[in-house]
C-alpha cells in the first residue's frame, strides 16, 4: 500500500511547504474554568505526537485551541513556516488541517460530492479528489450517498479531507474511532507518508496506534498547590 502510494509522481509535490508548531506555556479556559495550563511542546516537520489522557482531560480542547477555534488565555501558539511566524488564529489555519470528532460529511451527498465540496473550500485542484479516494480506498464507493456508508467508511471519508487540504500540520481527534484494522493501517500509512514529505501530525486518541518514532504525551491533572 505504502509503496503504491509513493510510486505516484504527483504525491511528492502535494505538500507545498513545511511548518512546525510550538506551544509555550499555553493555558485555555472554557466556560470561565481553566482546563489547560502550562502546555509547552514543539512539533517539527516529520514528527508525530500521540496525545493520551482520560476523558475530559482536555485533549479536544487543546486540539481546538491549536486549530484556532478557542482562544488561548495565556502563552503563545505559533506556527513557523519558512521565515514567517504565524501566531494569530487565522494565520495559523493556513498551515493546519483539523479533523474533529464529527466528520463534516453530508449524508444526502455522494462521497465524491462531499470531497469536491471540500476541494472548493480548500482551493484544491480536482486531481486531489481522486487521490483522496485512493488514499482511503473509497473509489468503489465514490458515487454512493454518504448516508449509506457505515460508521467506519464515513470516518475514512472524513479523514480523506486531509489529502484534499494538503496542509503541513495535521490535528486528528480520535481518528481511528469505529475503524477496522485495515482502515487504521491505511491511515497509519498515510501519516507515515505525510511525515516523509515533511508534514507533522498531532493525534489525540484512546486507541492503540502504532506510529514509528512517535512521541507519546499524556494530558493529566496538575498538582494543585
Amino acid at each position, binding site marked *: 500500500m505504502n509503496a503504491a502510494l509513493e510510486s505516484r509522481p504527483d504525491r511528492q509535490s502535494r505538500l507545498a511547504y513545511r511548518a512546525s508548531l510550538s506551544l509555550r506555556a499555553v493555558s485555555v479556559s*472554557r*466556560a*470561565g*474554568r*481553566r*482546563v*489547560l*495550563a*502550562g*502546555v*509547552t*511542546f514543539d512539533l517539527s516537520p516529520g514528527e508525530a505526537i500521540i*496525545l*493520551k*489522557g482520560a476523558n*475530559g*482531560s*482536555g485533549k479536544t480542547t*487543546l486540539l481546538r485551541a491549536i486549530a484556532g477555534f478557542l482562544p488561548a488565555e495565556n502563552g503563545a501558539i505559533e506556527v513557523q513556516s519558512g521565515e514567517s511566524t504565524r501566531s494569530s488564529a487565522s494565520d495559523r489555519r493556513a498551515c493546519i488541517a483539523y479533523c474533529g470528532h464529527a466528520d463534516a460529511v453530508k449524508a444526502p451527498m455522494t462521497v465524491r460530492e462531499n470531497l469536491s465540496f471540500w476541494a472548493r473550500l480548500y482551493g484544491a485542484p480536482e486531481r486531489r479528489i481522486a487521490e483522496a479516494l485512493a488514499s482511503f480506498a473509497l473509489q468503489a464507493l465514490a458515487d454512493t450517498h454518504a448516508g449509506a456508508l457505515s460508521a467506519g467508511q464515513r470516518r475514512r471519508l472524513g479523514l480523506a479531507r486531509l489529502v484534499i487540504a494538503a496542509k503541513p500540520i495535521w490535528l486528528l481527534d480520535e481518528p481511528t474511532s469505529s475503524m477496522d484494522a485495515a482502515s487504521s493501517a491505511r491511515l497509519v500509512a498515510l501519516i507515515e507518508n505525510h511525515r516523509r514529505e515533511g508534514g507533522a501530525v498531532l493525534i489525540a486518541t484512546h486507541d492503540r496506534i502504532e506510529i514509528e518514532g512517535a*512521541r*507519546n*504525551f*499524556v*494530558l*493529566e*491533572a*496538575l498538582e*494543585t498547590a
Partner: protein
Amino acid sequence: MIADLANPERFERFVKPFWLTASALAVILLALGFYFGLFHSPADYQQGDTVRIMYVHVPAAMMSMACYTAMAVASIVGFVWKHPLADVAAKASAPIGAVFTALALVTGSLWGKPMWGAWWVWDARLTSELILFFIYIGYIAIWEAVDDKIRAARLAAIVAIVGFVNIPIIKFSVDWWNSLHQGESIFRRGGPTIDGSMLLPLFLMIGAYMMVYAALLVPAMKNELSARRIARLERMGGVSGVRPE
C-alpha cells in the same frame, strides 16, 4: 481597580453609599411625585383626572429606552473590553427595562380605554413599545438559554447591539405604518402643550424612576456576581497539563 469590583463583596462595599443614596432618593421622589401628581396638579380640561396616568406612563416609557441604552452601552463595553462587570450590568438592566416597558404598555392601555374607547389601539408609540418589549424578551431568553456565562454574555451583547441599531428603523417603520392606517384615534395625548403645574410632578416622577432603576440595578448586579462565583466554584474541575510519557 475596576477589575477588582467583579468580586461581589468588594463590589457591595464600593457601591453601598451610592445604593443607599439612590434608594433614599427613590422613596422621597416617588412620594413627592405621587403627592404632586395626585393632589397638586390640575386635571386636564379634556381628559379630566385620567391625565394623571401620564405621571406613571411617560417616565416608564422613557425609562424603557433609557434602560435599553444603558444595556447596549454596557454590552459594547463588555464586548470590546471583555469586562465581567459590564456584562453583569447589561444583564441586570434587562429585566428592569422589560418591567418598565411592560409598565408603559399597561398604563398606556389603561389610559387608552377612557381616551380612545379601547384597551388597545395600535398607536405608533404603543406599537414600538410592544416591539421593544419583544426585543427585551429575546435578550433575556438568550441569557437563559446559554449555559456558559461568558459565551452568553458575548451572544447577548450582539443581540443588544443589533437591537439598538435597529430600534430607530423599527420606530420609523411603525410611525410610517401608523400614519398610513390612521384609525379612529381622536385625541393627541397630553394635549398640545403641557402646563407648568403638570411638569413638576412629571419631572419628579422621571427622577424617581431613574433612582428606582439605580436602586434595583445594584442588588441585581451583586446577585449575578455571586451567582457567577458560585457557578465557578461548582465547576472547579481539574486543570490539565502535558507531560511526555
